[in-house]
């Protein structure tokens, strides 16, 4: 027994450095593993308030600053005016509209989202037959006497935004911004297009070439078939 105890004590002395190492290893291994895992799977994340991951601010699109004025300036020159030059002729649309407004709407008008509201985007020319306070009545060339009204007063609604078919709600941060686009487009029409239609040269008999957007009517009567918001207009003699 005594020999056995001596042997044990000897073993203990022999293994002292080894024991310290093992004891240290007992802490180091789990600590290293924990650190490794903490790095691999951090329990929390530091994110920028306006960054893509910020739950309160929504998506990166929603959190970015949307500038309707700058957007509309670019859209107007780079997309809308080129599209206006290529827009469908108005006369055939008016012929269809006279026959069957619902069928004409289905064939020629654009819808945004769910609902019955639809818009035409077309170009045409004609002769002014009446000048009213906020509109001009124009008899369209080649449309068998059909008339339209060109808006010359304050512009409201979404005809320009939705009529061209070039703008999508999902390309802007949200509905508020989409509506801001509409208001800015209307302001742009009032600023850039309507002054040319309010001048002294615009009288009964004047010739007008234009392109614009109009809400599709559910039915048509004896008056103008469409009320068009012009995005481009030239007055001749």
């Amino acid at each position, binding site marked *: 027994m005594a020999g056995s105890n001596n042997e044990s004590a000897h073993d*203990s002395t022999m*293994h002292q450095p*080894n*024991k310290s190492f*093992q*004891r240290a*290893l*007992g802490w180091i*291994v*789990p600590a290293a*593993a*924990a650190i490794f*895992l*903490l790095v*691999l*799977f*951090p*329990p*929390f*994340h*530091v*994110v*920028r*308030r306006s960054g*893509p*991951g*910020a*739950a*309160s*601010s*929504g*998506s*990166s*699109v*929603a959190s970015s600053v949307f500038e309707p004025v700058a957007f509309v300036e670019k859209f107007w020159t780079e997309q809308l005016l080129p599209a206006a030059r290529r827009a469908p002729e108005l006369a055939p649309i008016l012929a269809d509209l006279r026959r069957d407004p619902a069928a004409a709407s289905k064939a020629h008008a654009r819808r*945004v*989202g*769910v*609902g*019955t*509201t639809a818009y035409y985007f077309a170009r045409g020319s004609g002769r002014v037959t009446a000048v009213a306070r906020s509109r001009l009545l124009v008899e369209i060339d080649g449309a068998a006497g059909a008339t339209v009204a060109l808006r010359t007063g*304050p512009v*409201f*609604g*979404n005809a320009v935004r939705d009529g061209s078919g070039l703008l999508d*709600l*999902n390309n802007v*941060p*949200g*509905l*508020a911004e*989409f*509506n801001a686009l*509409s*208001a800015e487009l209307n302001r742009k029409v009032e600023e850039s297009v309507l002054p040319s239609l309010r001048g002294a040269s615009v009288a009964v008999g004047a010739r007008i070439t234009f392109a614009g957007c109009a809400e599709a009517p559910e039915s048509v009567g004896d008056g103008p078939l469409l009320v068009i918001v012009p995005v481009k207009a030239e007055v001749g003699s």
Partner: protein
Amino acid sequence: MVACGKLLIALNPSAASASCLSDKSASAKGVSVDPQLEHHDSSPMRTPRYLRLSTCVALFASLLLGACKPAGETATPAGPGAAAGAKSRRVAVVVSTLNNPWFVVLAETARNRARELGYEATIFDSQNDPSKESTHFDNLIASGYGAVLFNCTDAEGSIANVRRATARGIGVFCMDREIKANDAATSQILSDNYSGAVAIGEHFVEKVGESGTYAELLGLVADTNTWNRSKGFHSVVDRFPDLKMVAQQSADFDRTRAMEVLETILQAHPDIDAVFCGNDAMAMGAYQALLAARKADQVEVFGFDGADDVVRAIAEGKITATAMQFPKIMAITAAENADKFLEGERNFPQRVPVTVELVTQENVHKFGDHGRKQ
């Protein structure tokens, strides 16, 4: 800003217990351990002890930390990998309030359409309380719902609820009210309140004229639609400087409150020409106040919503106009999209606007039952 991902500890009992129970099982079997040797264990038999301890710690840490996903991943809307909700046959309808009949129509139509499509559908009423809404989301996530037809209480505050649900594979389809994020909900079917109010504003100028005085009754001031409607309306009428707003006051979208508020306004401004109300319940209350003051024939009343009683009142010449919001179309579209989602479809437009249409005395015959007559 520190955002802590929700800790979802998905313990794997078999793995964790297998290594940790070895000590317990040793004691249970009556194996005694010399306390001295616990601190000086150098024998080959005792070496695995700290290794086992290390393994336990590391395993537990990995289980614990592995459950914490990066914030970006938790925000991912239901994608191909998030298919847990897609196997469910349960659909939740979470609605901001059931105190307003318009929202009752929205919620019940959504629930009924989901049931027609073969789902177990339940309505959760948030009572205009974001904390109640959050609790509803906790419950429906835990209860294994596959889709949520959602009318939010807060355009920004509700985003976190939607993200929690979509991260678990649950499809969330917003109805009527927008949440201000493009990457949270599966899809949003939205009523374009601003554009509807623009149409009301144009009709207002047509009926009242370009000069006169009017009052505006606002809805809940914290509600985004209150301001969308007010801004849309003012974007038109403010262009006519001789149209003067003599009073603007909140009546909380409530009929009785609107009656009381307009009674007070009429005492100060007895000669107003018109009242614009942010919803139809307030329009009915305003009409009652005008009736009591014997001014119902002199003052034009404009509402918003397309509620049945107001559509009838327009037909009877009592109210001038409202804006029809089509709650049934929104609810049915949302329920049918949820059905497609649960069948595996993942390609939905983020936002779908639903047109708001002007209802006047000229076209009122085309409307009824919260929409267009069939």
